[in-house]
């Protein structure tokens, strides 16, 4: 059965829309395969050239090749009308008929997409980390594209706290792109799945990422855009999300920050302004108020930790307090502290070391 699905998806010159239309008309891809010329020409909207292409490509040579490779790399293949595929992906006519994946796609795989630029700032990283950990804590899938930067951080933060994450790739699943995410990819497979619309050994061509972005938008319930420059690939995903009528959140940042021109623009154009991860689950979970309480408590705890100075190494507590003050005042380097504090170098270094160990700086 899956053989016919793969065959259908591999017919040259027949797009996703036509493929889905054929399946709808004949019921399943096997019937498409067995259809005669007269059957095919009865399909509404299928032109003669397309009929010819379907008839010409009735061979499993390529398909079997793909199946063999998939087996070798432990890649599983599901059609778009499979139960594991969310409704919104099934309904969009312009998405692929067949998905390849490694890992496990769980039943409740509705999730939130976190996307952003590859070259991100530490601000973007912090926002991503917070959001991904929050979603993981609420057992909501974190969806992203495993690219460098924001995507990678979203997956990583989610995995680190034991969450469930889905990664959509624009290349065959036997290839790891970018290369440095090899270990990340393995971990995603362990605690979620990597999904691709492309058969194994497809290279990461720039054009491939279009559909991948569409899938992300369709699969996710909401879209959080963390950072995007003026002309960013992120906007492809955003365009899809608009098309699929998904809620879009954008993270605000300084208007002079080049890496955030795109997100600020999104807010201007009417995207939701993102100020807290609670927004992401407001209508998904009833208990949002409760979770807000938890977060408040956590923040209190953190503040408490910073204030307390009594510790078992506090013979030099007064110096430590002075150092903390200096750091708050903008001292960035050890030598600056030495210039502005009366204590000797050794004492400062010792105090700094202890402060460092106690995670106060």
């Amino acid at each position: 059965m899956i053989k016919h699905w793969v065959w259908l998806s591999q017919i040259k010159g027949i797009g996703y829309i036509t493929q889905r239309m054929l399946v709808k008309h004949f019921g399943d891809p096997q019937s498409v395969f067995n259809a005669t010329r007269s059957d095919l020409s009865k399909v509404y909207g299928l032109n003669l050239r397309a009929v010819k292409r379907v008839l010409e490509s009735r061979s499993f040579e390529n398909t079997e090749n793909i199946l063999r490779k998939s087996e070798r790399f432990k890649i599983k293949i599901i059609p778009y009308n499979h139960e594991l595929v969310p409704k919104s992906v099934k309904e969009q006519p312009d998405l692929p008929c067949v998905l390849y994946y490694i890992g496990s796609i769980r039943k409740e795989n509705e999730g939130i997409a976190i996307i952003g630029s590859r070259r991100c700032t530490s601000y973007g990283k912090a926002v991503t980390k917070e959001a991904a950990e929050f979603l993981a804590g609420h057992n909501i899938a974190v969806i992203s594209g495993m690219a460098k930067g924001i995507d990678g951080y979203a997956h990583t933060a989610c995995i680190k706290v034991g969450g469930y994450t889905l990664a959509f790739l624009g290349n065959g699943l036997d290839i790891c792109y970018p290369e440095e995410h090899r270990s990340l990819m393995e971990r995603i497979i362990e605690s979620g799945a990597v999904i691709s619309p492309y058969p194994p050994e497809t290279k990461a061509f720039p054009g491939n990422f279009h559909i991948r972005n569409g899938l992300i938008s369709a699969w996710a319930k909401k879209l959080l855009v963390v950072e995007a420059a003026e002309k960013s690939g992120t906007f492809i995903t955003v365009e899809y999300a608009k098309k699929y009528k998904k809620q879009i959140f954008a993270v605000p940042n300084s208007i002079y920050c080049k890496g955030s021109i795109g997100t600020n623009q999104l807010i201007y154009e009417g995207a939701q302004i993102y100020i807290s991860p609670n927004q992401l689950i407001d209508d998904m979970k009833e208990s949002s108020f409760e979770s807000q309480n938890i977060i408040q408590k956590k923040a209190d705890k953190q503040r408490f930790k910073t204030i307390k100075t009594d510790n078992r190494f506090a013979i030099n507590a007064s110096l430590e307090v002075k150092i903390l003050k200096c750091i708050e005042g903008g001292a960035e380097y050890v030598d600056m502290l030495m210039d502005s504090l009366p204590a000797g170098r050794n004492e400062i270094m010792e105090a700094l070391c202890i402060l460092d160990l106690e995670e106060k700086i």
Partner: protein
Amino acid sequence: MAAVVKSFAITGVDGYVVEIEADTLYGQPSTSIVGLGDMAVKEASERLQAAINHEKYEFPKMKVVFNLAPGNVKKSGSHFDLGMAIGLLVQSGQLKVDQIDQFGFIGELSLNAGLRSCTGVLSMAIAARAAGIKNLIVPKGNMPEATLVKELNVLGFENLKQVTDFFNNGIYSCEINAVADTGISSNYKIDFCEVQGQASLLEYITIAAAGGHNILMLGSPGCGKSMIAKRIPTVLPPMTESEALEVTKIYSVAGLLKKRGSLILQRPFRAPHHNASTNSLVGGGNNAKPGEISLAHNGVLFLDEIAEFNKKALDALRQPMEDGKVTISRVNYTNTYPCNFMLVAALNPCPCGYYGQSKCHCTDYEVLKYRQKISGPILDRIDIQRYVQPIEFMELTKGSQKVNSDELRECVTRARKIQDRRYQGIENVNCNAQMTGALIKEYCQLENDGIGLLKMAFDRFEFSARAYHKFLKVARTFADMEESEKIRRKDIAGAIMARDLDKENKGMLVV
């Protein structure tokens, strides 16, 4: 009976005595040189004929055979020429030399019978003294170098005629140029007082120099990593005479002795470029010359942009770093060169170089991948990793106090003396960095609050067990700097602060 004349050859950095046997046999006039000489040795026959004829001696019209004994070891170099010429003249009865076994001969002949200087003379002179040879005849150009060896009568000549005159009439008229002062003193033209700011880094540089620890400097481009590295030799204690002799020997063998005739007094500083091949680093090549690590013997080997080095070449440093010597084996010979150096490495913190600053957009995965180019075993041998502060800040503190190298060197020398006393009689251990596990147990006892601090650090950063020893070694040096018997809490704190890279890697958001 064949005439026997003594000369020398080099294996590794050490010389050994070669007996040149010269014989004339009845037969077709010809010259052959046996004894596994290379082309330079074989071609000596043409030079010999020309030189001997030039001096109005007669080249025997017989079958001339030279044998370089021991005959089973490969030899190279053109310095056998003089020995062969003398041997042939003695054999053919044209020259009479009393007590020829008391003379050693070194020198390359020109066609006009002049004597050209050659490489490795210092090692050969040392070998001559060891073999009990009293007089050494060398080209005048090599004379100062050879006279570094005491208890050896070194005679310098400009051409073959002077040599034969000396043996015939006892005329020796070579003026000995006043040999440069062999006393150990070092005048560096550079000094740490030229470095702006960086006071805390300098402290760790001093620690590294005092304990013989290898150090890795992290910093953005142009923040002064290379400038600091170049000045590290200036804080190392001056070389002892035997150390200086070792270094000079290596340079003599490598043919890199610029000022012939004086010992190398400054500790060497070698900074190979990062496209260096494995062989150029550890030594090798056709005639197995010493590599950069041996040229940095008793000094500093600076690897700038260490992540850009060929991984294989870097990994080849592991064993030599451990042993303090490197053995190069080829089918026909095995050479051992000393290579006891302090490794100073510099590294950009990330691919773009500006990690931690707002202009850096490298992801954590990229940064880690970049840093992992240095293999674990090499990082393991580096005890101290510190950041070099970027330059903007240095301009702000232009007025801050500066330290000069002399002061730092005094501290270092003091700490080294303590270590010398401590490790007296222990083989292969001269400084804290070389301590073995057992020695660490013996000399690095911690007090309770020190252990507590170390435990906190381990809980926070999840250091490996191996790192524990590193902390103790560095802490030991901190204590030695202040001549403290015990390792105090602040020593431990200092050691913990010396792991910038480890700490930062721990904070990365990666799986």
